[in-house]
């Protein structure tokens, strides 16, 4: 065939032409012009994710928060002691540092046993390391027994002290309870209260703000006034007043629910405003008009066409309001009108460090403020990152 390629075909016969056997893809040229094409074809969700990934700090804060929230499910397992275990002979023990080497030899993580003496002048317990008493920490071990989530009994821990020994890595409080364990248990309350409160205010914000923004009229006017009122009362005094009303006779769980509801009930205003203003601007869009002309009901227009348009913004805004709730709970509990003892939250733990004397003598009781600060910082960064990612076309 190749020798006849240049020659003209016989009259009437079809003209021969070359067809390559190689595989052929009509989109090849565009697809391999990689980045741009990927960007053009990506869904909005994917674009947001890429944008979010670029914000390294926000990304790692997200990972950190995910891990923090993951601990909430297995607090009992992670904590070396039960939160209520009282070691009455080691009260106000300072943190025991973890060592790896004993007299130059590596033996893995261990703590030294301690001798306790009472300083007769200041009446303080003085703990000194006994450098001959090596107490290796045990891992994946049997320790204090607990009821997992208050239901399933167990005694399996990630880490426990040596048999017959003790390991208070962050010291103990006035009843000899382990500060580290209590902080781990406290995360369960402090972290969930923020999430539950925001969920509640999120729902309220979308429903109320959505109705106000979409329907306008008297409902909008009333809502605007109510929001203005709620925003002009300083939140903590208002929370204080409502929290003080919770009857003393309520069980701790009810108090927990009550505080969550109070935090959520008063916090929806910012979200409702955001929803309303977004709806007001989206309402004028052509695609909403099109939907309305096709006879869609307002519920469908809001839910199907408008909410997806600003959901990402809302989530970012909500993320930025979680820190305020966590701080609010902490402050209320610290002042003694929020959650109450058997429950342990970071705020309740911090009430132990209420006076200057305690801070001077037993500074480790301040430790629960560290996770508070870290979580709040992380939520702030995460919220910033989400807000940038919410508008990936910018």
């Amino acid at each position, binding site marked *: 065939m190749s020798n006849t390629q240049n020659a003209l075909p016989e009259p009437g016969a079809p003209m021969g032409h070359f067809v390559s056997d190689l595989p052929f893809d009509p989109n090849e040229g565009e697809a391999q012009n990689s980045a741009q094409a990927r960007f053009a074809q990506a869904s909005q969700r994917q674009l947001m994710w890429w944008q979010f990934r670029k914000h390294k700090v926000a990304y790692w804060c997200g990972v950190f928060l995910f891990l923090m929230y993951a601990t909430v499910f297995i607090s009992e397992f992670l904590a070396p002691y039960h939160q209520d275990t009282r070691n009455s002979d080691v009260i106000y023990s300072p943190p025991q540092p973890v060592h790896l080497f004993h007299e130059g030899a590596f033996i893995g993580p261990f703590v030294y046993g301690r001798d306790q003496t009472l300083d007769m002048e200041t009446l303080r317990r003085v703990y000194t390391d006994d450098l001959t008493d090596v107490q290796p920490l045990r891992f994946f071990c049997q320790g204090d027994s607990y009821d997992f989530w208050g239901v399933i009994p167990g005694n399996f821990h990630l880490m426990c002290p040596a048999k017959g020994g003790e390991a208070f890595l962050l010291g103990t409080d006035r009843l000899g309870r382990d500060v580290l364990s209590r902080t781990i248990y406290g995360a369960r309350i402090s972290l969930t209260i923020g999430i539950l409160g925001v969920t509640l205010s999120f729902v309220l914000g979308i429903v109320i703000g959505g109705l106000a923004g979409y329907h306008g009229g008297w409902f909008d006017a009333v809502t605007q006034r109510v929001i203005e009122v709620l925003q002009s*009362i300083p939140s903590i*005094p208002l929370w204080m*007043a409502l929290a*003080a009303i919770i009857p003393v006779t309520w069980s701790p769980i009810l108090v927990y629910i009550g505080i969550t509801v109070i935090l959520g009930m008063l916090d929806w205003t910012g979200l409702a405003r955001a929803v309303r203003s977004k709806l007001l601007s989206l309402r004028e869009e052509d695609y909403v008009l099109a939907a309305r002309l096709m006879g869609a009901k307002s519920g469908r227009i809001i839910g199907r066409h408008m909410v997806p348009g600003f959901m990402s913004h809302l989530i970012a805004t909500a993320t930025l309001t979680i820190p305020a709730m966590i*701080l609010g709970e902490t402050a209320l509990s610290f002042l003694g009108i929020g959650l109450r003892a058997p429950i342990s939250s970071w705020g309740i733990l911090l009430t132990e460090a209420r006076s*200057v004397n305690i*801070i*001077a003598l037993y500074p480790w009781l*301040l430790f629960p403020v560290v996770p508070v600060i870290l979580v*709040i910082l992380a939520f702030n960064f995460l919220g910033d990152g989400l807000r940038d990612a919410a508008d990936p076309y910018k």
Partner: protein
Amino acid sequence: MIRYIFMRVLTMIPTLVLISILVFLIIELPPGDFFESHIAELQALGEDADLAEIEMLRERYGFDQPQVIRYLNWAGGMLTGDFGYSFEYRLPVNEVVGDRLWLTIVLSVLTILFTWALAFPIGIYSATHQYSWGDYGLTFLGLIGIAVPNFMLALVMMYFANTWFGISIGNLMDRQYLNEPLSWEKVQSILSHIWIPVVIIGMAGTAGMVRRLRANLLDELDKQYVVTAKAKGLHPKKVLRKYPLRMALNFFVSDIGSILPAMISGAEVTAIVLSLETTGPMLIRALQSQDMYLAGSFLMFLAFLTVIGVLISDIALAFLDPRIRLGAGSSK
């Protein structure tokens, strides 16, 4: 302008009425009233309750009347300066409160001034030196200011003031001036104490304000009129001063409205920790003993303070920016 102020003050009235209804509902929410818990408390202690006196008080404050009438009495009393009766102290609320309201106002005003004085230069620096080390450092400091709870900051500062300087920073004035009338010495004593709560309370507000000011100013700096001014050869400092700063100033004044409630919240908590002679400690005490008239008056007072603060910032804004006072009638 006068018309704008007038309208603005008028819209304040329904807000205040709604706030007062809300506060009254909170006062009424707890089951039973102060008298019942008081009688129960006395009986638990084995003492006789003076039923006659209590009955008299009950009648005097209209506890036998329906809620609507009680609300009208309470709200009407407030208009004439009668804030009700503190059952715990057995004194009219006015007398119990004494200086505290004024001190709260002084503290709030000073905190706002402090916030402004700090946030303005820092915000400008951060925006004009975006992504420099100074910007990062200040941003980080600001974040710490947001993240550390007020009460912790107060406690820690109290501790360091104690160990480093040997001074005790609780309270707002030296003890001997507590019930004294206002005098120069008392003012001096207050001034020497008040800066610490001002710094503590102002911290979070300053941080938030710097953050928003920076973002706002950055937006302005990117605009075309700035580029034009620079292209025409205007000195960068002059460009900054003449254009973006003026725009940012607007935001700066209006932002008070958004940080004021948070600031007053923070002030209450800090005041409780530092046991300042402001409304905070007394509010929490009143709430704990369910002395609801006292608590209600405080809540109302704090809300009033916020509303007035926002009003002042709105009026200042109208002075600064003609667009606001002219557009107000149609858009609101």
